[in-house]
C-alpha cells in the first residue's frame, strides 16, 4: 500500500478520502487555498500545504502547484476527488510523467469519455442506445438545422461539460437563441471551451446511472444503479439506490452495458455510466464520469462496498477479489444534498457563515460533510454543505428516516434547502416513486414553506429579544427573574437565559 497520498481537492470529498486513507494506514497530504485554511480537510490531514488564491484557477486547478507539493511531501499517489482536476487528461499525464500514481483511470480513458461527442461514438460502436442529436459540437447555424430536424424539446449541452453547467432545456423555437447564448457563455467560463451540442429531449426522463469498478487486470464489475432524477438546474439534489423504477431484468441489462462501455476504454478505478430512461424502461447512454461521484455513498450503503478505499487499492495494483455474482444489494439508501441555497429564488446560492450547526445522527444515518459551527461558506466553491445519507430496509422506511433526520438538522446563518428537502420527503408522488427530472419544475409548491405555525417562532424571537434587553440593562430591571426562574426549576448549574 502507498505510504502517503495527496488529496487534490477540498470540502467533504477531501474529508471522505482522508478518512479512507487513515483507515488504510496511509498518511495524508492536504492542499488548501487562501479561503480554506480553516477547512476541515486541512484539520484532518497529517500534512497541509498552502497552494494559492481562493479562486480555483489560482490553486486547486494549478497542476504545477499540486505536483510541487506532491514532490515536496513525498506523496506517492494523488486522489483528485471530483470536480477540479479529476477529469483533466493533462493532469493524469503530468502525474504519470512525475511518477506519481493518479488514482483514477488512464489519461486516454479520461480523454475519450471527457469529450461527450467521442463518448457518444464509442457507445455507438458498442451498440449502446443513444438519444438522437448532433454528431458533435455545432455552430449556432448547424445547431438550428439539427434542432429543426429532431424537433423540440431539445437539450443544449456543453461538449466539455458536466454537473449541469452550460446546459439548457429548450421547449420552443423562440427560446432557442438566448438559451444557446447562455449555454455557450456558461460553458466558456466554466470549462474554458464554449462548444456545445444538441440532443432530443426525452420526455419525463429518469436519470439512472450504474457504478462500475475496474481493476488493472481487466476485471470490471458494477455495483448496481443509482436513481438521480430529482434535479434542479440539471444538478442532482436527491439520489437513491436502488431505483424503484427498474425491473431486475433492466438492472441486469444496464449493468452489462455499463461494463461493456468501461471495457471499451480499458477503464480502471471507479466510474459511472449515466443513462436517461423513459417511462417504459428504455434507456439511452448519456455520458461516463471518470471519477468518484458525489452520490457514491448510496451505493456504499446498499452494498457495503467502500468505493473510495477500492479506488486506492486498485491504483495500488490490487486485484478485485469479487465476482459480479458475489455483489449483493440490501435495503434502500437515500441521499439528500444539503445546499446553502434559497429554493424560493430559483435555488440561488447563499454563501455566508454558519453561526450554529447541529447535525442529525443515529442508526442508519451518515452525514458526509466538512462544515462546523463557525465555518464560512465562501462564494468561491460549490455551495454544498453536506450529503445526508440514510439506509433502511425499505424505500418507505428510508424516506421516513430521511425526513426524521432532516428535522434534526439545524443550520443557522445562511439559507439552506433543508425545508425544501423535507417537503419532498412528504410529497405523495415522490413517496410513490413517480419521479423524473422534471419533478421539481412540476412541484413549485415545494419551493416555499406550506402552512407554518408561526407561534413558536415568535415565542423564541421574543424570548431572545427579552434576554438581550435584560442583559443590556443589567441589574436595574427585574431581569434576574429569568435567572430566578431557572433556579426554581432546580437546574443544577445549567445555563439559564
Amino acid at each position, binding site marked *: 500500500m502507498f505510504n502517503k497520498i495527496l488529496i487534490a481537492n477540498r470540502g467533504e470529498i477531501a474529508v471522505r478520502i482522508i478518512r479512507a486513507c487513515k483507515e488504510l494506514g496511509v498518511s495524508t497530504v492536504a492542499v488548501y487555498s487562501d479561503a480554506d485554511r480553516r477547512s476541515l480537510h486541512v484539520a484532518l490531514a497529517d500534512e497541509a500545504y498552502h497552494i494559492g488564491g481562493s479562486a480555483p484557477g489560482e490553486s486547486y486547478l494549478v497542476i504545477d502547484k499540486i505536483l510541487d507539493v506532491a514532490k515536496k511531501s513525498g506523496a506517492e499517489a494523488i486522489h483528485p476527488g471530483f470536480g477540479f482536476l479529476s477529469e483533466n487528461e493533462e493532469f493524469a499525464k503530468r502525474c504519470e510523467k512525475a511518477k506519481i500514481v493518479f488514482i483514477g483511470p488512464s489519461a486516454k480513458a479520461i480523454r475519450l469519455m471527457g469529450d461527450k461527442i467521442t463518448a457518444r461514438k464509442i457507445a455507438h460502436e458498442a451498440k449502446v442506445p443513444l438519444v438522437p442529436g448532433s454528431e458533435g459540437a455545432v455552430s449556432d447555424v448547424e445547431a438550428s438545422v439539427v434542432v429543426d430536424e429532431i424537433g423540440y424539446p431539445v437539450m443544449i449541452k456543453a461538449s466539455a461539460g458536466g454537473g449541469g453547467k452550460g446546459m439548457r432545456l429548450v421547449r420552443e423555437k423562440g427560446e432557442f437563441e438566448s438559451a444557446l447564448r447562455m449555454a455557450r457563455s456558461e460553458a466558456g467560463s466554466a470549462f474554458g471551451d464554449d462548444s456545445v451540442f444538441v440532443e432530443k429531449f426525452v420526455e419525463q426522463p429518469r436519470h439512472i446511472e450504474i457504478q462500475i469498478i475496474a481493476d488493472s487486470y481487466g476485471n470490471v464489475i458494477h455495483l448496481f444503479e443509482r436513481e438521480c432524477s430529482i434535479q434542479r438546474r440539471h444538478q442532482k439534489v436527491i439520489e437513491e439506490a436502488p431505483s424503484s423504477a427498474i425491473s431486475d431484468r433492466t438492472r441486469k441489462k444496464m449493468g452489462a452495458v455499463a461494463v461493456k462501455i468501461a471495457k471499451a476504454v480499458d477503464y480502471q478505478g471507479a466510474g459511472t455510466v449515466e443513462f436517461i430512461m423513459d417511462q417504459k424502461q428504455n434507456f439511452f447512454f448519456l455520458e461516463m464520469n471518470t471519477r468518484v461521484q458525489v452520490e457514491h455513498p448510496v451505493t456504499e450503503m446498499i452494498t457495503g462496498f467502500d468505493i473510495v478505499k477500492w479506488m486506492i487499492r486498485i491504483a495500488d495494483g490490487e486485484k478485485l477479489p469479487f465476482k459480479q455474482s458475489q455483489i449483493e444489494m440490501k435495503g434502500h439508501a437515500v441521499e439528500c444534498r444539503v445546499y446553502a441555497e434559497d429554493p424560493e429564488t430559483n435555488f440561488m446560492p447563499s454563501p455566508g457563515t454558519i453561526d450554529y450547526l447541529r447535525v442529525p445522527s443515529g442508526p442508519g444515518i451518515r452525514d458526509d460533510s466538512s462544515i462546523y459551527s463557525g465555518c464560512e461558506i465562501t462564494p468561491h466553491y460549490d455551495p454544498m454543505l453536506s450529503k445526508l445519507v440514510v439506509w433502511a430496509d425499505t424505500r418507505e422506511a428510508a424516506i421516513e428516516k430521511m425526513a426524521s433526520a432532516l428535522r434534526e438538522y439545524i*443550520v443557522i446563518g445562511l439559507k439552506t434547502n433543508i*425545508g425544501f428537502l423535507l417537503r419532498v420527503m412528504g410529497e405523495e408522488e415522490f413517496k410513490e416513486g413517480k419521479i423524473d427530472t422534471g419533478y421539481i419544475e412540476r412541484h413549485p409548491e415545494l419551493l416555499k414553506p406550506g402552512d407554518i405555525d408561526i407561534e413558536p417562532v415568535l415565542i423564541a424571537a421574543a424570548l431572545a429579544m427579552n434576554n438581550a434587553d435584560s442583559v443590556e440593562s443589567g441589574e436595574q430591571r427585574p431581569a434576574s427573574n429569568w435567572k430566578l426562574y431557572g433556579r426554581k426549576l432546580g437546574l443544577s448549574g445549567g*445555563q*439559564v437565559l
Partner: protein
Amino acid sequence: MSYTLNYQGQAYKVEIEEDDKQISLEIDGKKVPVEFQKIEENLFSIIYEGKSITLGVVKKGHNLQIFLNGELYEIESVSERDKRKTSQIASGMQEIKSPMPSRVVKILTKQGDEVDVDEGVVVVEAMKMESELKSPIKGEVKDVFVNEGDAVEAGTVLLVVSSE
C-alpha cells in the same frame, strides 16, 4: 416588555409578562404560558401547550434568525420609533437586489424601459453559475445602479422598477 415582530411583512405584537411564578407571552392578544430553556448558546427549548419545541436562534441587533424544522425564519424586532420609518417605503416601488455576492454579467434593460412581470432584467454570476434576476412587477425601470462587470455584495440594489 412588549415587542413588535415582523415576519414577511406581517407584524405581530408579543408581550412578555414575568412574575415570580411563570413566564407568559401574549401573542396578538392570545395568552401563552411558556416554560423555556437555553440548551446551547444558539439553541432554545420551549415547552408550551404540551409541546416540546427546539429552535435555533441567532440574534444580530434587531434581526433574528430562527430555525425550526428545516426552515430559517427571518424576524425583525421593530421598536415603536422604527415602525414609523418602515412605513415610508413607497408602495409599487420594487428594488432588484443581488441575493448574494456576485458579478454583474449582463444588464438586460436600461432606465426608462418598460418591463413585464417575470421579465429578466439583470444576469449575475456567482459560484460559477449564471442566474437571471427577474422583475417581480410590471413597470418602468427608474434607475440602474450598476455596470456590467461590477462585483456586488449580497443585498446591493441593482436597479429599481416602479409600477406607478
